[in-house]
């Protein structure tokens, strides 16, 4: 073995925590119990039920792949899966597009901490009304004779009402972006607020202009916030059904809507298949997002 060239006084010393004694494990018991009963068991049950035999009027615990085969050979279900992924990607992009500049303003350019908090609280105010009301409120805004069309026609910008505004992909995307944007703004603004202002001054002093500093310093340092925000938005959008039900006129069917209708018509096995597919999709999305940034290192 050779001696290291430099005496290393900085390597983090190997910290050995005393082994958790059996007594300490009781601290996690309530949590483990709760999660087992209400999360792990239901998920296991859902996977199990997805293999049950579904007939028109009843369901039997005879194991079969029939529901899975039906799901993956049906245009309706695959279409719903594709729509879910498409809407999710678009909403992710729009929340980022709308949320990042807002977060940049609140987290970086508002120097006053009180004002920063006030602005973030303002973002949360829409949450004081119920989810359904927030969704339904978009109808009188976007409808054929809704506020937006009325104003555009009064101003003479359009002669015919724009019909694509409501009961379309667009209305679902507009609604979801508005509802989930704040989950993007929050984590990003938090990360940006943690950037030491002198780091940005140092970059300026070294001769870099604003866009260069944004690309090389601000964006990389805010990535953990983007990833956390993207996880929030993804998990919520992938499991969505209410916004598309209320604003798409049943034209946009997400996996969530499929599950709701299948459960409504007591097709438990199909609902379970859709549920498992959705869970796997979410798991995959979160896993990929966590690959982007090592959150343990950054937070």
């Amino acid at each position, binding site marked *: 073995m050779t001696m290291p060239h430099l005496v290393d006084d900085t390597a983090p010393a190997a910290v050995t925590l005393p082994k958790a004694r059996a007594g300490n494990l009781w601290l996690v018991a309530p949590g483990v119990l709760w999660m087992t009963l209400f999360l792990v068991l239901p998920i296991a049950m859902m996977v199990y039920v997805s293999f049950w035999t579904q007939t028109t009027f009843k369901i039997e615990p005879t194991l079969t792949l029939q529901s899975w085969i039906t799901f993956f050979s049906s245009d309706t279900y695959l279409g719903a899966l594709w729509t879910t992924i498409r809407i999710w990607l678009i909403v992710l992009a729009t929340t980022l597009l709308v949320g990042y500049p807002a977060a940049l303003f609140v987290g970086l350019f508002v120097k006053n901490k009180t004002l920063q908090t006030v602005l973030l609280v303002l973002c949360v105010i829409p949450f004081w009304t119920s989810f359904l009301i927030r969704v339904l409120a978009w109808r009188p805004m976007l409808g054929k004779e809704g506020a937006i069309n009325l104003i555009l026609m009064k101003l003479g910008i359009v002669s015919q009402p724009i019909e694509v505004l409501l009961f379309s992909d667009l209305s679902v995307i507009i609604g979801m972006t508005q509802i989930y944007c704040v989950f993007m703004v929050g984590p990003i603004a938090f990360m940006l607020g943690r950037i030491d202002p002198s780091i940005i*001054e*140092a970059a*300026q002093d070294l001769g870099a202009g604003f866009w260069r500093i944004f690309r090389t310093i601000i964006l990389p340092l805010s990535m953990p916030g983007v990833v956390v925000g993207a996880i929030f938005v993804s998990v919520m959008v992938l499991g969505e059904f209410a916004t598309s039900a209320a604003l798409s006129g049943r034209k946009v069917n997400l996996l969530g809507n499929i599950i709701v209708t299948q459960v409504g018509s007591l097709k438990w096995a199909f609902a379970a298949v859709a549920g498992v597919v959705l869970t796997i999709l979410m798991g995959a999305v979160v896993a990929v997002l966590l690959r982007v940034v090592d959150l343990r290192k950054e937070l």
Partner: protein
Amino acid sequence: MTAVLHLRNVVKQYGDSRALDGVSLSLPDNSYISLLGPSGSGKTTLLRVIAGFEQPEAGEIRFQGARIDALPPHQRGIGFVFQNFALFPHLSVEQNIAFGLTNRAIDPVTDGEVVRRKVKDMIALVGLTGLEDRGVSQISGGQKQRVALARTLVTEPKMVLLDEPLGALDANLRTRMRSELRSIRERCGVTFLHVTGSETEALAMGDTVLVLDRARIAQQGDADTIYNRPSSPAVARFLNCYNLLPGQVSGESFVSSVGTLGLGGLRQTAANPTYAIRYDRVSIRAKDAALADGETGIDGTFIASEYTGSAVNAFFTLADGSIFEVEQHLSHAAPSTFEPQAAYRLAWKKEDALVYA
């Protein structure tokens, strides 16, 4: 010696208080300048105004002959080393140092080979060889200091501003970095303006020492002049080595609240008449000892002493309750012992005193 930086009547106001109240100065090229001031004297503000992070309300800043007041920081060509180093936390040592070269708006270096060579030379200059690929959270305080310095120096600024660069280091490292900083500066041949609140650091490091007091430059000179002939009672107070006695000049003597003192040494004008005598110019005698010719003195009651290794600092209270400090060097004498609460005669040569009146 040619001057590289000129400030004329620079004013910076925060609300009602003036952080800089008409600062004028002129800094020589290729030298080490230390700027001494107590906390709140405006020294960090002065640096930030020169660097361009703050806009002055009035005045003129000239750098290498051209006015730079209106330029943004990234166009000034002045390097800034932050007190907390402000390293880019997501970049390695090497990437931190290369940042300015590749990302500056004016004349960026696009040739990867040139960048690598310059960064390698700079890493060798500041003594960081072997740590190129480390993350900046994986190196020690002294190494971070070197990265911060290298990151600035590699862009070849004509002047480097250092904001209490040694403040975040432990005492041992601080002394080592002092000589290191001076030798790095000599190798680069640029002007360093080093801000500090420590008088020993300012005197040890600066070819020229500036003293900032209440938002103005109180004195500019070499270390010896500043230490031996502070231009005002305030400067003498920062130096932390003068006993200051307020009073009035009356004929050939200085009447203070603790007694009448003989005049002799340098006299300078000041608003508040003050008599200053250095800690190490005073000798401690028995209470009734006679004063020799050319000497003057007062009586004090011994309270306590502090052993610092090379010297002993003895503290006395005077008639008006103020504290009088005497430093006795131990190189030629064993430490003497004094009786607590006993009275002694404190004597010094008249010509050693500085009088402001």
